[in-house]
């Protein structure tokens, strides 16, 4: 089955075609088809997993490739490669996709273009699966762009709203900048090695087939793509805006799967990064991103925005782990993060539905009475995100701390700060949303717990958020098919047996306690006097944070001033140098010539054909004469 894992991608692909063609006319607009599709790939994943594990260590990675086309000597192979990283990604994608599909049935009920939403969701799942299954960079790039497309379509799902349109465009264009880098990187690879196959490329690089400088440049381009997709500084701006899309989409695409594509790409090419000496760049970028977005998350008032910045921050954590050379730590955080962040997003979606589309924290509060299941699961997710022992987030964050430990105290200190911030804003989010008194009685009175179709996925994901961390343990992991625990399973080449470092556990618990209690103290019971301390004390700083360190304004400024200024220069040159002297002069010439030549322009095809034929005869005769 593992060698036929392409079926996983084919099923939602077919579902997309069917739903795009018939969706409107299917009973219930085809949502059952979407859920059926998600369920079947969820089931098929276990078939793949079982088969993959049966094959044992020696046969990894499982390859299946066909010759797609051959043009001369160049043979283009398309195929899939299934190795432990892929399996992890598959697990995340299929699980979260199933949950999100089920959740969406409740969330999107009665929304416009219901069928189209589900159709594009299937397209996304299909392309994401293709992305992680691809054994070559070309196919990966195709899937990369396809996930971008589906992300664009889903962010802009409510295209009647101008903000949604803007957000979709922003996401598309911003990631496109990175994608161009990725494409250039792929082409550079191909030029150097003559293949798109990832394993071959790694093989070539390990043999030193590419020069150092060139390799570094190539890897920078690849990293650009990864940063764009994973919303790393300075490409992070699109991800918060992408919250304009339906919330389940945010959970699936902008928290669990698509945004981690960059992490996946870096992890996949980690040997190459290592060989290129580019890991430090990754580390620094990740750290900056984690810190920066953690700070920004303090000042956000929209639930989804907070979660979005939190996602950016956690992606930074993953990059940090990768930059430290510990791919397993990064992948493990990816794995756990997918569950609890999807849980949080879906919980936010549940809140939005339950409160009839209110998502500003200032208007909420005290929801735990009204929505106990949502609140409970949200609490679990929050604690997992903040890193409470022994929830999933704790173990993966622990791994990252452990990884950074080797990189120097400074980095360790910074990442600890970031961890504290995580706990802080998580606590703030939970407290302001669920605890205390309702800020707006009107909204509170209408709030209802959502139905089982939405709460059941929450419960499942909450369960996963609790247990996902245990996969790191040898016994637990092997019981669930990850022999040797998560780290050993994911990276055979970097065996990193997990052991509990009690000092680190203590530190990390301390970080959790500081952050959580800090957040809770500030915001407990809606006491905004404490929370506004910062704003009163340093309004400039607060504004800076709230304005997201002026990144959007910076970009706007760049476009307004630099680009337009340059354009002005160019236009001046065009007007005076090109237009007046060059164009007008030549136009006069051309006009005169046209006046002379217009008699040849009869508009009759036979005349032209005659000219062509006569020309051919003349040229042939000339060439014969010259040739002989």
């Amino acid at each position, binding site marked *: 089955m593992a060698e036929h894992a392409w079926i996983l991608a084919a099923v939602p692909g077919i579902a997309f075609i069917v739903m795009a063609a018939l969706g409107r006319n299917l009973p219930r607009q085809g949502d059952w088809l979407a859920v059926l599709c998600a369920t079947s790939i969820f089931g098929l994943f276990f078939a793949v997993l079982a088969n993959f594990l049966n094959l044992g260590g020696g046969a990894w990675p499982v390859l299946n490739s066909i010759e797609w*086309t*051959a*043009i001369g000597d160049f043979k283009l192979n398309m195929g899939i490669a299934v190795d432990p990283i892929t399996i992890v990604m598959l697990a995340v994608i299929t699980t979260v996709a199933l949950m999100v599909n089920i959740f969406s049935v409740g969330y999107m009920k009665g929304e416009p273009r219901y069928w189209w939403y589900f159709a594009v969701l299937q397209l996304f799942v299909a392309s994401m699966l293709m992305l992680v299954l691809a054994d070559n960079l070309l196919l990966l790039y195709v899937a990369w762009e396809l996930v971008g497309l589906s992300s664009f379509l889903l962010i802009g799902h409510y295209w009647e709203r101008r903000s949604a349109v803007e957000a979709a465009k922003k996401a598309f264009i911003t990631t496109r900048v990175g994608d161009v880098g990725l494409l250039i990187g792929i082409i550079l690879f191909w030029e150097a090695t003559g293949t798109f196959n990832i394993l071959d490329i790694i093989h070539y690089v390990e043999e030193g087939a590419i020069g150092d400088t060139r390799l570094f440049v190539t890897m920078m381009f690849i990293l650009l793509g990864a940063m764009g997709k994973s919303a790393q500084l300075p490409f992070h701006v699109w991800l918060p805006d992408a919250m304009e899309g339906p919330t389940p989409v945010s959970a699936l695409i902008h928290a669990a799967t698509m945004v981690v594509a960059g992490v996946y790409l870096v992890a996949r090419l980690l040997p190459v990064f290592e060989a290129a000496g580019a890991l430090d760049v990754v580390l620094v970028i990740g750290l900056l991103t984690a810190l920066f977005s953690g700070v920004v998350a303090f000042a956000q008032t929209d639930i989804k925005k907070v979660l979005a910045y939190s996602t950016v921050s956690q992606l930074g954590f993953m990059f940090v782990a990768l930059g430290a050379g510990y791919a397993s730590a990064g992948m493990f955080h990816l794995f756990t993060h997918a569950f609890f962040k999807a849980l949080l997003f879906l919980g936010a979606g549940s809140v939005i539905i339950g409160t009839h589309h209110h998502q500003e924290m200032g208007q909420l509060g005290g929801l735990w009475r009204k929505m106990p299941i949502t609140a409970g699961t949200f609490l679990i997710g929050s604690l997992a995100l903040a890193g409470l022992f022994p929830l999933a987030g704790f173990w993966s964050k622990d791994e990252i701390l452990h990884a950074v430990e080797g990189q120097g105290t400074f980095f360790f200190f910074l990442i600890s700060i970031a961890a504290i911030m995580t706990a802080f804003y998580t606590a703030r989010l939970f407290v302001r949303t669920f605890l205390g008194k309702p800020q707006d009685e009107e909204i509170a009175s209408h709030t209802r717990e959502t139905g089982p179709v939405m709460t059941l996925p929450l419960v499942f994901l909450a369960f996963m958020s609790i247990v996902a961390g245990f996969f790191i343990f040898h016994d637990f992991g092997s019981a669930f098919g990850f022999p040797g625990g998560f780290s050993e399973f994911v990276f055979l080449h970097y065996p990193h047996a997990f052991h509990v470092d009690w000092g680190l556990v203590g530190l990390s618990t301390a970080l959790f306690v500081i952050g959580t209690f800090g957040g809770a103290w500030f915001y407990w019971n809606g006491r905004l006097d404490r929370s506004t301390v910062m704003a009163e004390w340093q309004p400039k700083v607060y504004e800076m944070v709230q304005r997201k360190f002026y990144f959007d304004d910076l970009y706007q400024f760049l476009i307004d001033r630099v680009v337009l200024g340059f354009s002005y220069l160019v236009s001046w040159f065009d007007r005076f140098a090109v237009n007046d002297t060059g164009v007008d002069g030549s136009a006069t010439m051309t006009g005169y010539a046209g006046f002379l030549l217009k008699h040849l322009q009869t508009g009759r095809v*036979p*005349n032209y054909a*005659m000219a062509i*034929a*006569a020309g*051919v*005869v003349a040229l*042939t*005769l000339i060439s*014969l004469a010259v040739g002989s």
Partner: protein
Amino acid sequence: MTTEVLWWIFAVAIVAVSAGVVFARTVIHSAIFLILSLAGVGAMYLFLTIEFIALVQFLIYGGAVTVLILLALMLTRMGIAGRPEPTTGVQAPFGALVAAGLMATLIGVAVSTAWPGDLGQNAVAVSIENIGEQMFQNFGAPFMITAALLLVAFIGAIVIARQEDED
């Protein structure tokens, strides 16, 4: 010997009917001469011992292309009640000149060139398996592109020939 005689008969006939295509007075006669010319070229492929191409020629040209032409003539009723139009354009003499020049050039080139690899022996039969292998292996991409081209042409023809709503 028989083959050569037959070949010459066919060659003269093809030239005659091809001339008929361009010189015939009515379009329908031209179309029928075209069928004969195409069939003659098909026979030439038989002389070259390549039945496959000959059959493709019959099937596509004889069965589809000329039928399309005749159908278009019927639909537009050009051959029956169309307005009498001058059949030959004003540039006929120049055209004749150019065509004659072209013919002379082509014949000259064909005869005078020493073709590399021409062993001076009879044409060799090409097996259909060979053609199939070549077509689907070495010419896979052109094959696919041709398929796409046919589809696009099909759709385009429908779109163009469709009557517009405001008509």
